[in-house]
């Protein structure tokens, strides 16, 4: 018997992982949630059939979306994380002793419940006493926040489905309002490679550029996401993602990481020409 998970990366490209067994399948009010075991990637989570994370490569995504802003902001204390019900971003954030509070806003309570049960490797720190979990639409939550956070991490799914509000101008504008003066917003920025993903990437970049004085993009290699070439957005009112990087201070923390380091940090903001061009087109 052969059982394969397949995701269509474009109408003409498929990505498949051989499944050992399916551990969970369920529908929430918002989406279908599945958890599988596989030989190559270990356990993995999908939402509406789209790959969210695998045990083998999740560290790349979670380290890059978390440590980049944490190494730039001079003194991050109050953090807001939107999406991220799998807990991976929380796991990385709780490693910083200076962090005082982490608000996690996830629209789908069932995602958190399923991850706690089946993905303890990412959901392991959700019970940290600095973490407050709110189950609501991030667009709604952030609307009421003003001058409250040092860092906002937008760990969204794709720009269609329950996460689509997290790619809108009204959302980015609300984030800007919710951040303190030297605050930083980092977001999952889609991929530049396949044309449909690239168009979504450009659209959200334009909206962020319109909402923040500083807006830069950085990249990482994530094997199980479409094309493997993935981008993140870094937006702020004052902090520059590379010039304001305090390498010595971050290295003093002695955090052990699998992907991120401060040299890579600077390099990640150097983008291929075709990506630079796409970004320039909408700036």
């Amino acid at each position: 018997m052969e059982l394969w998970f397949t995701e269509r990366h474009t109408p003409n490209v498929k990505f498949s992982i051989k499944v050992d067994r399916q551990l969970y399948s369920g529908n929430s009010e918002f989406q279908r949630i599945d958890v599988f075991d596989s030989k190559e990637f270990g356990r993995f989570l999908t939402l509406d059939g789209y790959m969210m994370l695998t045990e083998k490569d999740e560290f790349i995504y979670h380290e890059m979306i978390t440590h980049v802003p944490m190494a730039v902001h001079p003194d991050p204390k109050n953090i807001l994380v939107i999406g991220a019900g799998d807990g991976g971003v929380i796991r990385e954030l709780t490693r910083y002793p200076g962090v005082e509070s982490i608000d996690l806003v996830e629209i789908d309570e069932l995602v958190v419940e399923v991850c706690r049960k089946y993905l303890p490797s990412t959901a392991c720190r959700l019970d940290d006493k600095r973490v407050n979990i709110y189950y609501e639409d991030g667009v709604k939550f952030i609307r009421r926040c003003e001058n409250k956070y040092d860092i906002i991490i937008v760990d969204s799914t794709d720009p269609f489905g329950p996460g689509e509000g997290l790619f809108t101008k009204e959302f980015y504008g609300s984030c800007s309002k919710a951040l303190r003066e030297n605050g930083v917003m980092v977001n999952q920025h889609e991929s530049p490679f396949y044309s449909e993903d690239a168009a979504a990437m450009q659209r959200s970049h334009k909206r962020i550029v319109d909402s923040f004085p500083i807006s830069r993009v950085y990249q990482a290699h994530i094997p199980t996401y479409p094309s493997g070439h993935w981008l993140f957005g870094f937006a702020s009112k004052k902090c520059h993602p590379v010039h304001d990087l305090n390498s010595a201070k971050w290295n003093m923390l002695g955090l052990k990481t699998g992907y991120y380091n401060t040299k890579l940090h600077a390099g990640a903001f150097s983008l291929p020409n075709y990506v630079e061009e796409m970004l320039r087109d909408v700036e």
Partner: protein
Amino acid sequence: MALYQTDAPIYEALRKLRRMRVVPFDVPGHKRGRGNMELTEFLGEDCMNVDVNSMKPLDNLCHPVSVIRDAETLAAQAFHAASAFFMVGGTTSAVQSMIMYACKSGDKIIMPRNVHRSAINALILTGAVPVYVNPDVNAQLGIALGMSLAQVEQAILENPDAKAIMVNNPTYYGICSDLRRITKLAHEHNMLVLVDEAHGTHFYFGENFPVSAMDAGADITSVSMHKSGGSLTQSSFLIMGKSVNSDYMRQIINLTQTTSASYLLLSSLDISRKRLALMGRDIFAETIEMAEYARSEINSIGGYYAYSKELINGDSIFDFDVSKLSVYTLPVGLAGIEVYDYLRDEYDIQIEFGDIGNILAYISVGDRKRDIERLISALSEIKRRFGRSGADMLTQEYISPIVAETPRTAFYADKVSLPLNEASGHVCTEFVMCYPPGIPILAPGELVTKEIIEYINYAREKGCQLTGTEDINIERLNVLKQHNKE
């Protein structure tokens, strides 16, 4: 054969026809789409397949004897009425038909001045004479309200020869008049009650809505099924009670109705009626819940005022349709039309309309909670980014007109074209309105005043889409030739 609301006779006949694979040697010439592939690829094969002409198995809208008659019978039942007509010329055609039924040339009809242009167009066509009841105006919101009973009574007593009274219920903004008592009063004086219920389809199917025209005892009502009812744009119902001669009404409708009615429109009416009859209660409960949620969130932003039943005053705001999301925007220092433009240009959100002081977002069962969140957040952001002090905002929305001639006399009279700004003191012979909502600022036969010119210029400056004049740029106005400047 017994008919049930679970039936949809036109829809079923079309499905049967499709299965029969009849070879078409009749119009339309695209022949099930094969003759126009680009259009077929755009609209879809299924759609082109049912774009067919009247034929025996499909009945004929001009003279219904089978499936269309059955579908109209079902619609009449669903709307608590004696008979119903499927209309394919929009609610405009329904409003015009009911006025043409009630009035011949020279007959008087009592109506509020803030009617849709279609009603005044019908006056031009028939030569009926309007007796305007000026609507109450809410001074804060600047919007025209419903008809007050005392004013209606006065108009009836002063014009006992009037043939009919027309009521706009609910208004675009969701405001309802005391339809039951107006109807009773009109009937006591042998006048027909015609209702423009374009924005009230849901009153017949949901719970806790204001009273519908048929339930209030009105004689004829025009219902925009394509608004809250979910059918295709341009499809509509004309609904009437026992007192109306429906066979004569059919002749009236056929004066102006196409003889090639679209089966896309007809089937959409049929299917939508079935859907509302079977599921309307739940559908509109959900709509109300979303509208109420949006209202409370918008009111918590500050500045904006999303109004509701608290406006009720027992007369000119006898009731309020809570499925409407109307928001007063002037306290954030922005005209409604400016907020409307920002929503679209900055946030990719298209709402129904914006006027000088208000916006209206149309909420329906097709909306998703997350889209409502976007609308609320966008309003919050617009206030933060573009909000100003609310001073210097023109609030006057409704200007009571001075009627010098009947619409028909003015429209067909000898006229001259003047620059708009020089037209004060002359009698206008054409319409000027913002669209939407399509309620005339000036109608044919009305005196142009400085105040009205100022209002038109202000609306233009704020970005309202002005329509109606012969001059497509709305810079010149046609006025009566023979009228002396006052």
